[in-house]
Each structure stands twice: as C-alpha cells, then as structure tokens.
C-alpha cells in the first residue's frame, strides 16, 4: 500500500485535472474487481466502483483524487507567469518552492528577496499577487511555447520516508484515502469478503474547490451511509494549548464527531468507535472543530445520508510536504476494512 501511496501522491492532479490520478487507480484495480462489480467515470470525472448487494443498505466510501495546486492567469513580457491558487493554500508556504506543470515543465515560485522589500511589504507578509513563476523563459513568446493561460501546475515534491514511520510528500491529502480505498477493493476481491452493504467506492474530483465532485457522485448514488476518508490538519507541534491541538500525529485514526461542514451521525460514529475497540485499532477523537470535506455535500444531498469521517492526522497540510505517520495510515485502513466487514449499525 506504501508503494501505491507514493505513486498516487506524486501523480499530477489539481482540482479539475484529475485524469492522471484516475488512470492510476483504474489500472490498479481493474483486474481486482469482485464479481459483478462495475467501474464507471461520471461527467464530473468521479470514478465510481460499485460492488452490488441488491436491496441492502447503500454505503458510499469516499476519498477525493484532487490536490491543491495552481493555475496560470497571465504571462508577463519578461517571461514570468502570474498565477492563482486552486484550493486553499497559505501564501506562507509558497516562497521559492519548486513547481511542475502537467507537461513536465519545471519552475520556481519567485518572490522579492527580503532585502529589497519595503517595510510595508515586509509587514504585510507574503501575498500571491506579489509572486510569480519562473519557468526559465526570458520573453513572453518563449513562455507561450511551453505554457498558456489556464495551464495547471502543482508543487514539485519528492516522496520521502523519514524518522520513525513519518512520510512527507505533496498531495497526501487525499491520495492516502485513494490508496486505502484501492487496497480495500483488492482485499474484497482477494479474500472474497462479503459485505452487509450495497457498496460504492467514490473517488471524487474537485474537493479542494468546494466539494463539487462529491455533489454529483452522491446525487447519483443516493447513499444511506457515507464514510469519508480524509487527511486532517493537526496542530500538535505549534505550541498550541492542548485544547487547540485538534489531534496528534501517531495517536491513531481520527474519529471525529463534527467539522465545520457537517455534524456526523452519532450512531454511526459510535458504531465505528466500538469496532475499533473490538479490533484493538488505535483511534483518537478531534479536540477542536475545524475544516470541512466531501461529507458536507454528501450529507445533505438528495434525501440525505448518515455520514462519518475517518481522518489521518497531517502536519503542514496543503504544502509541498504534507506529513503523516504510517501507523495512522495503517489504522485508518484497518478501520475502513472493519466497517465494511461489520453489520449495518443499529441504534443503541
């Protein structure tokens, strides 16, 4: 699963441009689809794997394929590019970072050096409007040969395992969820797992720009239950007081009860916690309510669904180096598997 995590995380796929990620996933699972299962791509580009169990409760397992990235918005006379962010990126993480285009063209984020900044500029902090991209072109014409307005690019990053079980790479948000879903589909095939649910696995698009992929996918699937697999920004190392740490890297899969976009179904959350207790899977709750994800749209779509979110703790999220802990990754995977093998939750 680590090899796949690496392959997926390094793949190029900002919101609205997920084709390459989807291709990897398709190739990974096309020979591992359980009997009767279908794999389709919808109009938005969501990849949906359906493992039917007619008449049973519909469970939609969800992870998004897209990553945060950038788009060219203008080409200057001196060959430098102006750009905008696709998804939420703090300009603080941008200065002098390597970037890579879909075509493979490489570049660098250009910022004014500190000794040339005015006092006001220094005080105001980094702003995207004051940055540009250097792709080694010296004239507009030269630049136009290798890029265009509307061209996508992302952080150019390596996949590095370091320390005791840490991983850093771009786009771990949410390729880790995609990798886990691929592995679970393979497990179902290889171990001939019979689930109590009518199962859908949705690899969605455009989560980072407002969950619009999940909107279409869930409108089509109309799930009864949805389990979203995500990465979650944690504040365990910034000197935050305990109540604001959100969660802690290495302390297990995060089973939250709410975020800023959705309040999860309580019985479903409790069901998942009790499965973890039973299977002895390490988990933690979130200590601070923050963020949002595909669950916001899935929950209130069509006639509504009972949702829950499993997250893998991540530091420096939406940067060149998201950092996760492999143990949390494994625990998240084990939890998804446990849910799929379990009976449909009943009220306590």
């Amino acid at each position: 699963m680590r090899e796949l995590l690496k392959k997926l995380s390094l793949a190029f796929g900002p919101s609205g441009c997920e084709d390459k990620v989807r291709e990897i996933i398709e190739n990974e699972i096309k020979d591992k689809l359980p009997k009767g299962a279908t794999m389709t791509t919808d109009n938005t580009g969501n990849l949906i794997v359906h493992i039917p169990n007619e008449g049973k409760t519909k469970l939609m397992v969800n992870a998004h394929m897209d990553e945060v990235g950038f788009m060219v918005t203008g080409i200057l006379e001196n060959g430098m590019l102006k750009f905008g962010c696709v998804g939420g990126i703090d300009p603080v993480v941008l200065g002098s970072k390597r970037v890579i285009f879909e075509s493979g063209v490489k570049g660098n984020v250009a910022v004014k050096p500190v000794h040339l900044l005015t006092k006001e500029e220094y005080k105001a902090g980094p702003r995207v409007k004051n940055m540009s991209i250097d792709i080694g072109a010296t004239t507009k014409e030269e630049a136009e040969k290798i890029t265009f307005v509307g061209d996508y690019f992302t952080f150019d990053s390596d996949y590095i395992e370091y320390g005791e079980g840490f991983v850093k790479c771009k786009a771990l948000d949410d390729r880790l969820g995609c990798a886990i879903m691929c592995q679970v589909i393979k497990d179902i095939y290889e171990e001939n797992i019979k689930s109590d649910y009518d199962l859908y696995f949705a690899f969605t698009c455009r989560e980072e720009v407002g969950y619009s992929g999940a909107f279409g996918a869930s409108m089509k699937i109309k799930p009864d239950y949805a389990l979203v697999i995500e990465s979650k920004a944690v504040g365990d190392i910034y000197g935050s007081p305990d109540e604001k740490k959100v969660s802690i890297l290495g302390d297990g899969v995060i089973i939250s009860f709410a975020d800023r976009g959705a309040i999860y179904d309580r019985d479903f959350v409790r069901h998942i916690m009790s499965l973890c207790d039973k299977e002895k899977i390490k988990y933690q709750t979130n200590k601070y309510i923050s963020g949002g994800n595909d669950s916001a749209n899935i929950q209130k779509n069509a006639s509504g669904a009972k949702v829950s979110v499993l997250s893998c703790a991540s530091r420096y999220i939406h940067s060149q180096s998201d950092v996760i802990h492999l143990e949390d990754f494994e625990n998240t995977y084990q939890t998804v598997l446990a849910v799929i093998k379990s009976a449909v939750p009943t009220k306590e």
Partner: protein
Amino acid sequence: MTELIKRLMFTPSVSGREDKIREVIKNEASPYADEITTDPMGNLIVRKKGNGKKIMLCAHMDEIGFFVTFIDDSGNIRVSPVGGVNAISASYGEVVSENGTYGVIVPESSNDVPKWESVYIDIGAKTKKQAEKKVQIGDFFVPVPKFRKLQNQRYVGRPFDDRVGCAILLEALKEVKSDNDLYFVFSVQEEVGGRGSRPAAFGIAPDIGIVLDVTATGDKPGSKPMDVKLGGGCAIKIKDPSTICSPDLVSKMREIATEEGIKFQNEMLLFGGTDAASMQVAGKGVKVGAISIPSAYIHSSCEMIDMVDIKEAVKLTVALSNKL
C-alpha cells in the same frame, strides 16, 4: 399552547443531536397524522394526506448550543459553538448537558468581549477523570432553558427559536381540515446552515414550501430599521439575505390573511436566513414563503416573543393549508 411551547423548549437538542425533541414532537403529532417518517438525516416528516397541492410546512427542531471538544487535567471543559450562539449572553450563564449535567460557562478574562477560544465550562469537577464521568467529547451543552411570562402577552426565555415554529405546526396539524397533501416537516440542523431541510424537500418534492421561524424586530434600541414590531401580528416574509420568497406566493399569503382577518406584518429582514433558502433550491426548485414570528434578542438567553403573534401565525398556517 404555552404549555406545549414550554415542553418543547425544555427538551434540549442542538443541531445534529435532535433525538429527544423528535420523540416529543412525534408523540404529540401521532394522533393527528396519517403517516410519520424519519429520514436519514433525522428530519421528522408528518403527513396528512390529501389529493390537492403538495405543501411542505417546515419548522426546525434544533437549537444553538455547544459541543464539547476537550477536557483539561483540572476538569475544565472546552467547547465549540453550534450555530450562532451569542457569546456575551452565554457568558457567566448556567449551562446543562444532554445528560442533565449542570455547569457554568465562563470567559478566561472578564474585561474583554468573550471569544469562543477563551471560554470554558466548569461543572465543578476537580480532575479530568471526574469530569469524564459526566461528560464525553462530542456531548452537547446548551444554556439552561428558561420560560417566564412578563407584562402583556410577552414571554422571555430560550430557546423560542424555533420551538415556537414547531408548536405552531403542531397546533395547525390538530386544527387543519384540508384537501391538500400536507407535509409537516420538523427539520434538523437549521442553525448550522439549513442542512436538513434541503434533503427533506428533495424527498418530498413539494409544490409549495412554507417555513415557520422567528424573525427580528425593529422596535428595540439599536435594532436595524425594520417594519416588524413585537405583538404586531405574524410576519409574512418578503425577503432576507438568504431567500427571495416567491412573489406570487407572498401575494397569495397576504390575500388569504386579509380575507381571514389575520393580523400580519411585512417582513424585510436585513440579516440572517431560514430553511426557506435551502428548500427553494432543492430538487427541481420549490416555491417558498415564510410565516415569521417576531422575536427580540434572538440567539440570546433571553429571547422574547409575544403570544399575540403566535396565535395569528397558527391561524395563518391553518388558513394557508386549506386555501392555497
């Protein structure tokens, strides 16, 4: 009817945790309903069958409050607000949890306007372990429910928003005799952005949607300019920042109110929103309107309403159910 309102108010249920209030409403509604269902998100849908128009009447069951996010070693409890709770009003007030644990909510500093990051709940516990016997992460607290009669027909307390709407729907359900196909919907999660009413409206696909919820008034010091007064009758919403009500429906509502001699006011609300916003854009779209109950000091611990307005709202709800 005041007894019913009070009973609904004294059943704490914040957004996403509406189980208890749903049971109370369900029991109250069942003798009068042809069919009662609960959808996946928890909306309670009470149907009174008919062959006429499909009308969805909607009031939200949830209230604002707090979720427990963290408990420190000394047993102090950190919370995150659910919906737009007024931090000034909540501070130094009594709170109660879903399992009946009482406490107080206190800001760290008494000099500043309280921020949610710097308030905590004290339930009298000495240690984390002791606190955890009563309170778990993910549990909810609310400011303690209150209900008191003042002068005239005015009552103060919490949460009138939107238990009065629920009470009005229940009263209307008892009185109504209509050929229309009526869906009385008690929705979830309105206070966090109208999340419940959208799937409810998608499932029902009504011809017309009418929301019952509170609105502000323009007759208190510091109020925004607004032609709605406490005690001036129920309000027929024209617009708020989240919804432009269907003009033909608004005209029809006014017409019926005038015919029936119901006292009403015109509502143009400059802030806030209701379930009408999400119902309007559900499915293939729904014609929406709203009957609003004027309320002063909304989302505080001393919301104020006038019984006169509530009685007029019941009459209008019944009249619309019959005549639309």
